[in-house]
């Protein structure tokens, strides 16, 4: 159990890292992109905008 927990912890730290809100924001932005595409909008601009917003907000939180 201990090994399983530390293995899960390793993957969480590896992928999600210090700011889980970045990971959550990426998932939300891509879900919105997928939804827009299925509504007929070629939303190629949404992921880059999400990157600017998520990085900026995360750096701002870290600076506090």
């Amino acid at each position, binding site marked *: 159990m201990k090994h399983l927990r530390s293995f899960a912890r390793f993957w969480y730290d590896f992928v999600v890292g210090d700011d889980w809100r970045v990971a959550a924001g990426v998932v939300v932005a891509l879900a919105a992109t997928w939804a827009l595409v299925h509504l007929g909008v070629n939303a190629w601009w949404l992921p880059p905008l999400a990157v*600017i917003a998520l990085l900026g907000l995360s750096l701002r939180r870290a*600076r*506090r």
Partner: protein
Amino acid sequence: MSAWVLFGTVFLACMVEAVEALTIILAAGTGRHWGSAVQGTLASVVALAATVAALGPAVDRVPLGTLRLVVGTLLLIFGLQWLRKAVLRAAGLKALHDEDAAYAKELAAARAAATGGRWAVRDWYAFTLSFKGVFLEGLEVVFIVLTFGASQHDLPMAVLGATAAVLAVAGLGLAVRAPLARVPENTMKFAVGTMLTSFGVFWSAEGAGVHWPGSDAALLVLVPAVAVLGLGCVPLLRTAPREELAR
């Protein structure tokens, strides 16, 4: 993406991981017993090879759209994490990763640990320390190789990039027998974070059904744009007063 861009990206990313693994092996070898540290490293390489053999063919069977969405999402999260850390370090808001300090810490812990061997291993502590270090850093290398290689349908080139990185770091480590503190790790992390974020944006959006203007040429805009974004954040973080940013 050209095969050489794939090679370069995988090479840089894997080099960062290999430097960290080397620090642990050197601490286990110098502080305890070289033979056991080498045994631990070799056992770990075998375990990693088995992992690649098990996961590699499975990744190939996933449809490309799904693969790009999943891999792109992971790369984007992972890349933003690297970029964020590299920007914070460059702005002086986070301590630079110091391989000398990490080495000294591991060495002190290795020297203080109890002695004793098991089976054919003379020093069990040195064996497990190097095994765990190489396996964990190696898993990160495997992740990078599989995601980049599978998304570009060029696993051999990704494997070549990773192998070259590991051999370069191992060669340097053998030559100097000391932690590679002079490797500009933050610059490498910045470059890798930029590449991972750019490819992550590109693949995840394609996986979600987006058609990029200019198709693959969009990457030629995305990569420099992400680099400029990261570089632009560094002076802003350095100069802005904390109260203003905290508002």
